[in-house]
Structure formats: C-alpha cells, structure tokens
C-alpha cells in the first residue's frame, strides 16, 4: 500500500487547498461562496465533493481550474502554487482538465477532432499523431464507431464519455468533474459510473468530482467530503474503504449501506438548511 502511494506521488496530482475563501460581489452585494476551506487530496485519489445545490462547490472547482480568482488562501498542485495571494487567479492548463455539467464538446468538431484537439493546440503532437492516438483511445473506451460523428448526433451519455477521453488524452494530473452525470437517468448513470471506474483503474488519475448524489459519491470515491451550504465549508469527511475494482454488487452490501448512513445525516441537515435559506430569499 505504502509503495503504491509513492508511485502515485511520482506521477503527480496531489492537490492541496489551504484556507481558500471566495467572495463574490455582484453589484456590491456581499456573497460569500467559499469560506476558509482547506483539504488535501492525495495523488491518485478519487475525491468526491458532496453538498446541496448552489453551495459553492463549483466555485472551488473553478478556482482550481483557473476560471475564477480566489479572495484569500492558496491552492497547490504537487507543491506548485496554482493560486494564492500573489496570484489570485490560476492560469488554465492541461494538467487540470474540467468535464462540464452540460458537456462542452465543441459542436463544430467531430468526436475524433474533439479528442485530438488538446495535443494539437499544445503543440505536443502533429495532427496525424493526435488523430491516430485519439482513434486508439476512443477504441479503448469502446467508442470507435462514433468517431466521425458530431456531438449533436450522439446521446448525452456518449458525449460525456468522449469528453472524458478528450481530457485523458492530455494525461492530466487532475480530472475535475462538475456534476457530469446530473441530467442523466439512473440507468445511464450506472453505465457512466462503470465506465468512469474502468478509466480510473486504468489511469489512476486524481479525480475531483462534484456531485449532490451521495450514493454516487460513495460508490465512486476513495473519500467523500460533505460540504456545508453557502458559504461552502468542509462539514464531514467519510473514508470509503471498499476495495477496488468495484462493481455494482457492492451497492447492496452492508458496508455500503453503513457508509451511506454515516454520511446521510450530515448531507440531509445541510440540504434542509439550504432549502430554508432559499425560502427566506424568496419571501
């Protein structure tokens, strides 16, 4: 176990979030999205962030990805400063790739062109090399049939899988997933989960996964971080010790049920708070 950890560390992907605070001020109204949040994510960990809708989880992800600045605090990736007091906004880079909630495959490129996009623009491969590698990777993911289709022609589940391939082709250190399966039905979701686990077992990439689905979080994650409602803070950490590779049988296991029980109360409490806060705002 110890050895494996070191090997993973060498590959990189350790994410360290230290006392991060983010205050938005739309028209001077003070909205605190993230309040003094700290967490350490080991290299190769599947880290699941669970919290009520609109609690500021996405703000955290945006700060890591470099879409937003942070107000105070620091974020490190493998001891390298992404953002901090001297540099409020991280620069975007192919070491941290986001998979978006509604999907952001370029509709004007075929799936293969989408996958090959990263290496080409980074200049690390020629167009031919990138297309060849893209084909191989799509085939590994069982998606070679649709390589020449446009994103608008395939189902959202397939598009999301391609989007993960598009991220992985750059060998990122961290994969940032922002509720990627939110709009899917339960059956599609379960297929998505299996394919994501398969990808993880193959690559052991660090995964920062935002969701509000507790069972999804425990099924996929090594560690589940339950967040409070806005402002976003860490409320509870649940370690998931279910061995990998996992499959759908564990969903009915006693261990899984106990873990859900353990986290559920904390999540429910926050959801209720968020709901009541929403009620107040509307009244």
């Amino acid at each position, binding site marked *: 176990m110890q050895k494996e950890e070191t090997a993973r560390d060498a590959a990189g992907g350790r994410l360290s979030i230290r006392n991060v*605070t983010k*205050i938005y*001020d739309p*028209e*001077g109204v*003070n909205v*605190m999205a993230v*309040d*003094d*949040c*700290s*967490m*350490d994510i080991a290299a190769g960990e599947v880290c699941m962030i669970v919290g009520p809708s609109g609690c500021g989880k996405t703000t955290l992800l945006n700060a890591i990805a470099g879409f937003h600045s942070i*107000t*105070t605090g620091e974020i490190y990736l493998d001891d390298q400063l992404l953002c901090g007091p001297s540099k409020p906004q991280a620069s975007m880079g192919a070491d941290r790739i986001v998979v978006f909630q509604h999907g952001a495959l370029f509709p004007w490129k075929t799936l293969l062109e989408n996958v090959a996009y990263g290496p080409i623009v980074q200049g690390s491969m020629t167009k031919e090399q990138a297309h060849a590698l893209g084909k191989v990777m799509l085939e590994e993911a069982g998606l070679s049939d649709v390589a020449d289709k446009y994103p608008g022609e395939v189902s959202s589940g397939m598009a999301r899988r391609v989007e993960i391939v598009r991220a992985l082709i750059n060998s990122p250190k961290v994969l940032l997933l922002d509720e990627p399966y939110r709009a899917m039905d339960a059956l599609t979701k379960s297929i998505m989960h299996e394919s994501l686990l398969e990808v993880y077992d193959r690559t052991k990439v660090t995964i920062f996964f935002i969701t509000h689905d507790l069972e999804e979080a425990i099924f996929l994650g090594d560690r589940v971080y339950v967040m409070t409602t806005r402002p976003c*803070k*860490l*409320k509870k*950490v649940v370690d998931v010790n279910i061995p990998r590779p996992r499959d759908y049988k564990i969903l009915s296991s006693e261990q899984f049920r106990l873990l859900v029980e353990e986290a559920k109360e904390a999540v429910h409490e926050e959801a209720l708070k968020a709901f009541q806060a929403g009620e107040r705002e509307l009244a």
Partner: protein
Amino acid sequence: MTEMVQSGHDGPVVVRRSRLKKALSNVKFWRGLIAICVFLGLWEIGSRWESWFGVAFPYVGLIPAPSAVGLAATEVVTKIGYWTSWVDSFKRVFVGFMAAMILGIPFGLALAVNKYFRGIFFPPFEILRPIPPLAWVPASLIFWPTNEMSIAFVTFLGAFFTIVINVLGGARAIDVRYLRAAQSMGATQWDLFYKIILPGTLPSIFTGAAVGMGITWEVVLAAEMISGGGTQAGGGLGFFIWNSFMGGSLEQVVVGMISIGIAGYLSSSAVRALGDYFMPWRRLF
C-alpha cells in the same frame, strides 16, 4: 486530514471591490466618449486638411467638417421648413407603419393558425417578398392617383413583409406544451388564440415592428428623394436632403442625415417602449 476551521470574513474587502466595479463600468463610458471624440476629431482634421496643407485628403476631404455642420445646424433649426419636413416625414412613416401593422398582424396570425390559409396565401407572398420595396415606387406612382398615396403604399409594403414574416415565425414557434396545458385545463379555441397564441407572438410582433420601423424610414426617405414633390416650406426630410444637395449646401445635407438618424432612433425607441409596456413579463429580464 484537515478538518474545517471556521473563521469570519466580511466588510472591508467587499467595499473595495464594488468601488472597483463601478470604476470598470465607467471605463466603458469613457472609452465610448473617447472613441466618438477621436472620430469627430479625425473627421474635422480630414475635411480641413486642404486649407491647412493645400492638398485635399482623399474622400473625407470632400465632406464638410463637423464644426461647419454644427454651425449650419444652428441656422437650420430656426427655419420653419425644416420642422415641417420632420412632421411630413413622421406622418408618412406613421401612416405606412400603422397600415402595415393593422393588416400584417392578422394576416401573419392567420397564416400561422390555419393550414389552408397558409397553403393558399403563403406562396404568392413568398414570390413578392424578395422584390425590394423601392422597386415598387414607379409602379406605385402609376397606379395611385396622388404622390402621397404612392409613398404611403411603398412604405406600407416595406414594413408589411417584415412584420408578417416575424408574426408567422413567432406564432409557429410557440411551445406546444403551452397549448396542451391550456387545452387540458379546458380552454376553447378562442381562448387558445386569445390567451396563448396572441401573447406568445407579442415578442415577435415587436421585433418585427422594430425592424419594420427601420425599413419604413429608409423607404420614406428614398421615396421622397426619388419622387421629389416638396417645396422650400417642407416636404419631408428626404426632400430636405435632396434639395440641400441640389442647392449645393453640403452642411445641410449632413444636418439632414443626422436628423433622419435621430428621427429613426426616436421611432425605434418608441416601439421598444411600447413593447416593454405590453409585455410586462419581459421587463424582468
């Protein structure tokens, strides 16, 4: 593993940032102001180039300088003929535009709701639509007994096609779910039309009206310029421009252009304001 430590932040940070934001919104305003000043300055320099350096600046050198235009404007606004031109043009625009609205909206709605009506009347409409409104001017001059009526007719045509197309598109784009929801609550055919289709089409009607208003001004201007028919005492802004051009007063031509720009802008703003008034649910956004 790090457990969360809570700490309270508020106050000073926020105040500084919102002030920054205010300054940012000002930046846009200042940039716009600078741009327009630079634009006017270059124009002024360009048209004065010849008197300073002896050689005419290409193109811009032939246009009167903004300062000269301003001077001409102060003179023009004291003349009664200029203002009657405003009134005349506005009258024509109003007549043509209202006629297009009164005939165009029911026609567009009828095309949208009735399949047979659409089958019969849409193809001829589509054949006539690509003909630019101004190509109708001579035919209209032959047909209508007076000049005024032919200008009104061409103006009407210009706005009519745009309004009908927008109404038709808007009414056809109404979400079927609204119709089904209303039907499931027991709405009659008349209710469907009056409570769903009509308000659902309002945004498109006003979009069409705004575009149509722009076209109306262009057509009125052109019709006035082509048909002539005005005197010193008035006759419309298009005639004012043409007359000034023939009289060799370029400053007045530019004054006329700016006047037409202002008139067109005022009319579109009026349409927009009406739209806001009739569509309170849109004001929220």
